[in-house]
């Protein structure tokens, strides 16, 4: 069969890759086979451009039970016989086309990844990126995405406890929507996504199969596209009610011994679900597409196998237990059908009645070519990194107050309350620290423990310096957890980049991963799961390199958690960590961005970072400090303002002697800094502890009154500060 370039483009295979398939198969593939190869060899399922790079992430620790790629999500032991299951995933392209449904089904997909393992989903987080809200289309995308997350997640009864929203021009045509879900299970009830045991039955449960989402994995997620609006019909539509029934039914099923495995249907639908579980189980599968219940008439085997209709699960039922399993689903008013069985011949055989339409070895489908290239640093990056702060005039002291207000009101820094109050963040009766803090905290019922969760990734840093940006993404996420009193346990990450076939993008991906891996090793935090979303470009414009780090940490005693807001009048405020005012710290900052400059390296000292985190964690555990807040976007002055606003307590500084530049001192974004508060009689303990960890502890001032006063520079009422920060984002909508 001569194959046209159009057909290959549609399924995102190159001519070379097609030749490889013919060679390995010893014949031309059938239409169905080609579709299956296209899906499974796509970047989304096959990781062909990223796999070699992802290997550099450390993935072991004594708590890690399931590593990346082994199952649908990573698993970490938290003691007491309990495990947490965690993964983050992107739904960028569908959200760019149809924001409400794109984001909603993104939540649906990641939630299925968790409960398919027998874990009850107990937390959602979202990391979102949009273009500036001055553009009406970006406001439409923003409203649709937030509405979709709320509409789907709220209906499921899973609390949404945190995340981030960040705005930059590069996301106008390519908004990013990453959803993280964490579940909890008793270790003994974990379910594997493995189709094993010859003669065991494949049962399809949930929604009927329609033509929605065809080519989602190979098309939408694995190539760039020119006219996104034409692709609306490829976006799936979600039904959260059906998903809620699936959650309850599948969790009930997970406690029985009637099944051999369970796997949700996500990207590439039945194809990836069946083939990947067969690959993990080491056997083969046989499916009759005529037995798949359909939503539409006249669907071809190709369409049935590649449909991405939502809310479907594939259950591998032990032979002889099918009636019991069916009865369980019947009780939940869910449709279930036996569509095939597990075989022992290592083949993925797809039939339409008696006619075989595809018969390919499973291991061929799941071993796409792996690409690794040598690329050099782009010249334009070198130019971005060379920035001399002396080229711009320093901030005059009388402008410090208005600059602070401007930064607080900028959408990247302003409170995200108008977003998170649309998400149910308390259902489940576990949420100890609500969204709006450095990390969300959930207690674990039946234990004294709690877990803390955050997502992070400053993409401006990654754009200017992909390596340092990667380092900082990991370090900052860990610092956020530490500020809540948690010991970081594990990472899930989502890597959102442009087209990896371009040298510059590949360089960004490679450097960013290498920076993240370095920080993971230094801070001893393993990566347990993740997702890549490449080809985030439209008309040649790629997004900033956007790694999103989702991190979970453990608090052994929930009563010893910490929050970012100041607590008591009279407490002293200290800056822990890097107290050197270095000019480098202004590079790529929000301060420069507000002035229209995106240049200059960010700065981090990983050794200092490590010591700072240990020091802060010890101070919280020993009950020395009353609040802890990470200095991030907007620097120290912004962090002080945020700590004031949480509980409406003011701050009065000591007499600071600022040597060097004022803008850097107030708004520089040097990493490894935490603002803490302490009762005056415990201050010596903090100073002693900081000395032991060899980090700075600089007394900044004291909590009190209803104003934010940095003597000689800033004197603002909390009302003014609050209006800027609480209202900054809301005003733009």
């Amino acid at each position, binding site marked *: 069969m001569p194959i046209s370039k159009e057909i290959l483009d549609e399924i995102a295979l190159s001519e070379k890759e097609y030749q490889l398939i013919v060679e390995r198969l010893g014949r031309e593939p059938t239409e169905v086979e080609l579709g299956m190869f296209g899906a499974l060899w796509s970047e989304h399922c096959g990781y062909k451009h990223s796999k070699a790079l992802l290997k550099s992430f450390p993935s072991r620790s004594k708590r890690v039970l399931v590593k990346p790629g082994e199952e649908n999500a990573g698993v970490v032991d938290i003691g007491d016989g309990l495990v947490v299951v965690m993964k983050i995933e992107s739904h960028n392209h569908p959200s760019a086309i149809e924001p409400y449904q794109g984001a909603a089904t993104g939540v649906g997909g990641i939630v299925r990844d968790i409960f398919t393992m027998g874990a009850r989903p107990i937390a959602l987080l979202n990391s979102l990126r949009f273009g500036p809200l001055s553009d009406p289309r970006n406001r439409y995308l923003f409203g649709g995405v937030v509405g979709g997350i709320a*509409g789907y997640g709220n209906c499921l*009864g899973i609390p949404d406890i945190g995340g981030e929203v960040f705005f930059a021009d590069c996301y106008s045509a390519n908004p990013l929507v990453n959803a993280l879900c964490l579940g909890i299970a008793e270790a003994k009830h974990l379910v594997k996504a493995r189709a094993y045991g010859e003669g065991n039955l494949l049962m399809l449960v949930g929604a009927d199969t329609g033509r929605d989402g065809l080519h989602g994995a190979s098309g939408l997620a694995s190539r760039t596209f020119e006219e996104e609006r034409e692709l609306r019909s490829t976006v799936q539509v979600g039904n959260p*009610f059906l998903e*809620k029934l699936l959650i309850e039914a599948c969790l009930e099923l997970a406690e029985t011994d009637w099944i051999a495995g369970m796997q949700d249907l996500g990207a590439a639908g039945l194809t990836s679900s069946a083939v990947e579980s067969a690959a993990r189980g080491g056997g083969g599968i046989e499916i009759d597409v005529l037995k798949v219940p359909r939503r539409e008439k006249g669907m071809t085997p190709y369409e049935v196998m590649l449909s991405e209709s939502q809310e479907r699960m594939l259950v591998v039922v032990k032979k002889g237990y099918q009636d019991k399993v069916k009865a369980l689903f019947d009780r939940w008013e869910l449709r279930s059908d036996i569509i095939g069985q597990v075989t022992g011949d290592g083949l993925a055989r797809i039939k339409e009645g008696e006619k075989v339409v595809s018969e390919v070895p499973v291991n061929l489908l799941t071993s796409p070519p792996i690409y690794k290239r040598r690329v050099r640093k782009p010249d334009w990056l070198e130019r971005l990194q060379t920035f001399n702060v002396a080229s711009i005039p320093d901030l005059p002291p009388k402008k410090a107050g208005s600059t602070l207000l401007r930064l607080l009101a900028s959408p990247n820094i302003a409170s995200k309350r108008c977003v*998170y109050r*649309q998400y149910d963040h*308390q259902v489940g*009766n576990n949420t100890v620290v609500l969204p709006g803090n450095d990390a969300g905290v959930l207690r674990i019922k039946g234990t004294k423990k709690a877990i803390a969760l955050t997502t992070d990734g400053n993409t401006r840093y990654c754009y200017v310096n992909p390596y340092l940006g990667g380092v900082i993404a990991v370090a900052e996420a860990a610092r956020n957890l530490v500020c809540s009193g948690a010991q970081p346990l594990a990472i899930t990450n989502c890597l959102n980049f442009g087209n990896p076939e371009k040298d510059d993008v590949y360089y960004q991906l490679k450097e960013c991963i290498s920076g993240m891996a370095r920080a993971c090793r230094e801070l001893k935090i393993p990566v347990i799961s993740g997702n890549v979303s490449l080809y985030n470009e439209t008309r040649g414009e790629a997004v900033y390199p956007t790694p999103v780090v989702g991190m979970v940490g453990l608090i052994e005693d929930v009563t010893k958690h910490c929050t970012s807001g100041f607590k008591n009048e009279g407490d002293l405020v200290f800056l822990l960590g890097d107290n050197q005012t270095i000019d480098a710290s202004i590079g790529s900052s929000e301060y420069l961005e507000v002035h229209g400059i995106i240049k200059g390296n960010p700065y981090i000292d990983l050794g200092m970072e490590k010591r700072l985190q240990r020091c802060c964690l010890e101070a919280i555990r020993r009950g020395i400090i009353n609040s802890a807040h990470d200095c991030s976007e907007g620097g120290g002055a912004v962090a002080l303002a945020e700590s004031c606003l949480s509980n409406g307590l003011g701050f009065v500084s000591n007499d600071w002697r600022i040597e060097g530049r004022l803008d850097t001192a107030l708004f520089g974004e040097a990493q490894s800094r935490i603002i803490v508060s302490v009762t005056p009689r415990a201050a010596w303990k903090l100073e002693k502890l900081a000395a032991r960890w060899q980090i700075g502890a600089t007394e900044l001032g004291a909590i009190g009154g209803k104003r934010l006063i940095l003597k000689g520079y800033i004197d603002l009422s909390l009302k003014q500060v609050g209006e800027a920060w609480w209202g900054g984002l809301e005003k733009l909508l």
Partner: protein
Amino acid sequence: MKFGIIVFPGTWSDRDCYYSLKDILRQKVDYIWHKETNLSDCDCIILPGGFSYGDYLRPGAIARFSPIMPSLEHFASQGKLVIGICNGFQILCESGLLPGALLRNDHLEYRCQWVHLKVENSSSPFTYRCRGGQVLKIPISHYEGRYYADDATLAELEANKRVVFRYSTSTGDITDTANPNGSLRNIAGIINKKGNVLGMMPHPERACEPLLGSSDGNLIWESIIANI
């Protein structure tokens, strides 16, 4: 005494009610699937929050046809206690056990946040342990919580002290800014004529522990327990 929690497909605060009653208040409590019809061994029935039937059509509009509903009406007619929370309140209004309706929030957004509730009637079986005018801190989480009824119904509710909770400031002032959803007269919870059926939008089961921010919800549960 024993609590029964009715579970519809799509219900989610069943588990939170169960946890708070069983693990915090040490009460007997059971889940009741919506297809059952026997409520005789329960002393108080809870219609919990969530999205019964996905809130498709209208919140509560499908659940009210569940097989359990005639039994619930019979249970209520005997003067036994029924509390509908959030989606449960919506189901009670749809089924006619309580008057009025819960419309979309006036700002057309889902809203999850802490609110303050002023106890307007402290002699009901659900508020017996509260002081008159006491302000409770309890969270809301809903899209359709704007209480609406015609003028005659509102007048009747007010005249018979059937408005049990109103959204207020932390000091008990009934203001527009304290109203999170545009409910008429800041109404957050009402009882039926007999006083044995309560519907409220806020979630008392989420406010049973200081660790989670408030234990004011316990006043409602303890009132019920003391009344049986």
